[in-house]
């Protein structure tokens, strides 16, 4: 196969000093599906953003079909047929699918925008690649899987021959993933080249021709997929044997710490996000909730932690009603929350590591001497946490924005775990964390479970859920549609059916496993 793209000596350093890419070489052959794997912070997304014109490298060259080229913007990349579908979609929610697809190349009638032409273009290309989308729906109203299709069609309409996909299956169910892979194979048959970034080694083995492994900003190896096993790949990624599963001893659950009754809630635009949620969490157990992103689990956690109001229903912590109470009073009832979005809720970027670590306890008597904060005690506490949680930072007075994503998450986890909660709400606790850190977090969660904490675990990582949960619930369109009290007996295929709403347990089975 001939070489289509070659990247040579690519170096990129971010303003906070992080070396994202360190003299990286990459070679992509025409018509292949090429996977790029690596831990978080390995530099995969940065490298691809450079190729797709979103980021400029500090050093290095790019060759297209042997010819040296400069890519200064996404549109220049598209001229060479390189298009990228990002992890966070680049769509405009209040515009329709058709408007989003033709954005930047809008068909005109005189001086005005030709909406009819936009719609027909959308239908054409949707048919050509067998990816159905509704041209007239507003993007804010369509499901995640369709949003991704819109993104892919956008690139294809602009003549992308090389498609870069960044963690495309992060938000998809197993079934939607299958559908995506089918589309990718169709595209490959039609002569397109695909590069995709992923964490998921199973997918890599399934669909890619070659793999490039990146580690700490460097290209460690490029090999044919057939010639290497999952274990070998992960060894290259991390450089040591990774224990895929953490040991979990059987413990007997105790009293109920969390009781949710008849919970109902609405989103900002009036849609009912939670219909009638009932479940409990007891001490010494981990209850996992699986579901495709956007089915109400985020809203559920927000309500439980006091960040959002419930319209109806009751939430009891150790028997005390905390429904719609403030975040402060909920925290006072010994509830901790590892939020899904660490940038939005979990941290204050411009503040120091120390200031971030004590945000839930700064007003407690042990850190205050009359009217003044006890600086020494605060610093000691912070340093203790940094050591215990292995956070890579020299001084707790450093601004947290200087840390890598994984270490920032560790700060959040450190704070929430160290407050000795009786209920921990963990929403995507290992998102953006590398394999080593992920293992650490899992071990901590299990430790807490043994120490009589009740844990509610929300995750889009089914492996994580299967490995950690004692009981597993599945949420679909704001309702709990399945519950399993024996996690070992379920298979992934089945979970996917429930997650997509294709199957639903009957009332009795549900209730049994709920409590």
């Amino acid at each position, binding site marked *: 196969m001939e070489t289509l793209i070659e990247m040579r000596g690519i170096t990129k350093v971010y303003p906070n000093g992080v070396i994202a890419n360190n003299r990286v070489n990459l070679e992509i052959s025409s018509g292949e599906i090429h996977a790029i794997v690596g831990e978080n912070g390995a530099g995969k997304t940065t490298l691809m953003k450079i190729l797709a014109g979103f980021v400029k490298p500090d050093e290095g060259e790019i060759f297209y079909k042997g010819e040296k080229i400069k890519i200064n*913007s*996404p549109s220049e990349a598209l001229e060479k047929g390189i298009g990228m579908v990002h992890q*966070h979609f680049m769509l405009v929610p209040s*515009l329709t699918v058709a408007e989003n697809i033709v954005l*930047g190349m809008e068909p005109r009638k005189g*001086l*005005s925008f030709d909406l009819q032409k936009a719609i027909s273009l959308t239908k054409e290309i949707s048919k050509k690649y067998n990816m159905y989308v509704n041209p007239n729906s507003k993007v804010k109203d369509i499901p995640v899987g369709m949003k991704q299709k819109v993104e892919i069609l956008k690139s294809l309409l602009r003549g992308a021959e090389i498609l870069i996909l960044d963690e495309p299956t992060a938000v998809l169910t197993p079934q939607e993933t299958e559908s995506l892979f089918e589309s990718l194979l169709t595209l490959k048959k039609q002569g397109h080249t695909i590069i995709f970034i992923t964490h998921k080694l199973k997918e890599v083995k399934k669909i890619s021709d070659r793999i490039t492994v990146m580690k700490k900003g460097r290209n460690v190896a490029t090999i044919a997929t057939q010639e290497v096993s999952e274990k070998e790949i992960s060894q290259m990624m991390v450089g040591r044997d990774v224990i895929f599963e953490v040991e979990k001893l059987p413990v007997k659950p105790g009293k109920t710490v969390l009781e949710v009754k008849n919970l109902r809630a609405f989103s*900002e635009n*009036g*849609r009912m996000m939670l219909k009638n949620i009932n479940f409990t969490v007891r001490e010494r157990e981990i209850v996992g909730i699986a579901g495709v992103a956007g089915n109400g689990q985020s809203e559920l956690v927000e309500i439980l932690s006091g960040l959002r109001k419930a319209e109806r229903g009751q939430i009891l912590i150790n028997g005390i009603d905390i429904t719609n109470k403030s975040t402060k009073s909920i925290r006072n009832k010994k509830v901790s929350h590892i939020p899904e979005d660490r940038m939005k809720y979990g941290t204050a970027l411009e503040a120091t590591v120390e200031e971030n670590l004590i945000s839930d306890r700064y007003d407690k008597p042990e850190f205050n001497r009359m009217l003044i904060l006890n600086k020494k005690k605060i610093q000691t506490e912070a340093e203790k946490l940094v050591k215990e949680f292995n956070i890579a930072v020299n001084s707790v007075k450093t601004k947290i924005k200087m840390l890598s994503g994984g270490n920032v998450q560790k700060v959040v986890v450190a704070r929430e775990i160290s407050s000795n909660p009786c209920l921990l709400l963990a929403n995507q606790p290992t998102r953006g964390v590398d394999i080593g850190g992920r293992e650490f977090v899992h071990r901590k969660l299990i430790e807490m479970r043994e120490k009589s904490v009740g844990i509610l675990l929300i995750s889009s990582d089914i492996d994580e859920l299967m490995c950690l949960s004692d009981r597993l619930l599945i949420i679909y369109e704001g309702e709990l549609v399945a519950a399993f009290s024996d996690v070992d007996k379920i298979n992934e295929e089945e979970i996917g059916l429930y997650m997509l709403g294709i199957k639903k347990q009957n009332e009795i089975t549900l209730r049994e496993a709920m409590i």
Partner: protein
Amino acid sequence: MVKVLQGIFTASFFHAIFRVTTPILFASLAALISDVCGIVNVGIEGLMLISALTGVVISALTQSAWSGMIVGVIVSALFSLLLAYFHLKLKTNIILAGIALNLMASGGTVFVLAVLTGQKGVSTALNSRVLPDIRIPFIDKIPILGEILSNHNVLTYIAFISVPLVWYFMYRMPLGLRFRTIGENPEAARSVGIHVHRLQYLALVLSGLFAGLAGVYMSMGYVSWFVRDMAAGRGFMGLAAAAMGGNKPFLVMLAALLFGIADALSNYLQSLRIPSEIVHMIPYLITVVFLTIYAIFSHHKKMKKITFSADDA
């Protein structure tokens, strides 16, 4: 009280409403255009002062009101471009930059006037011109409506005609589509090759043009001179009106009219025996009150929407 009401429900008062709304409407459109494209133009107040002075000076120089207007509007657009440059290229916080522009304009216009005429604060030494009022042929014969709608300054008509024009631009033209995209999700725009910064520069220039029209109207239509700080907060009322109208042209026009009514009311009350200081307070009070009502209303709308849906489910 009765006397006040009698005075208000007259054709001449309604005429005054349109007259007084004009600068606020221009300022609102200026705020709308840049806001839709993702930039809050806090400097409208300063731009108005700059164009007001420029209009007066140039028209005195050339003895032509039109050239005063054109140059005034261009100068405002240029300063708007400066604002854009500092925000987009040098990454100055847009609100602070806008405030800086307002400060610079407030002192700078007095400075320039003093240098040119030796007078500090009023331009009476200059023989500046004024933009014409227009008498609409058939309409002005209609009994009450005629008095309300005809014999306005040309810029008043331009202001109100601009509203549907701005609407068409935003919702029926590709450029408007792009503006809205940039305001809502600039990454999405960038990813399809739209030059986000280029268009934001354009948005700010257009915003500057409208702000310029507002300023020029003040010194060459509303009154016929320049006096220090004559914008008197109208630039900020424009921001408030755009926010209240949700950046939708026709709603913004309604909001601007509300502020215009408050302003006209305060002018009218001055002719009665109420202390001038109290009267001066009225437009600003009403702005705050309207803003608060609007905020409470949106707040409750959010709550209401949620309970409403509960009934269908």
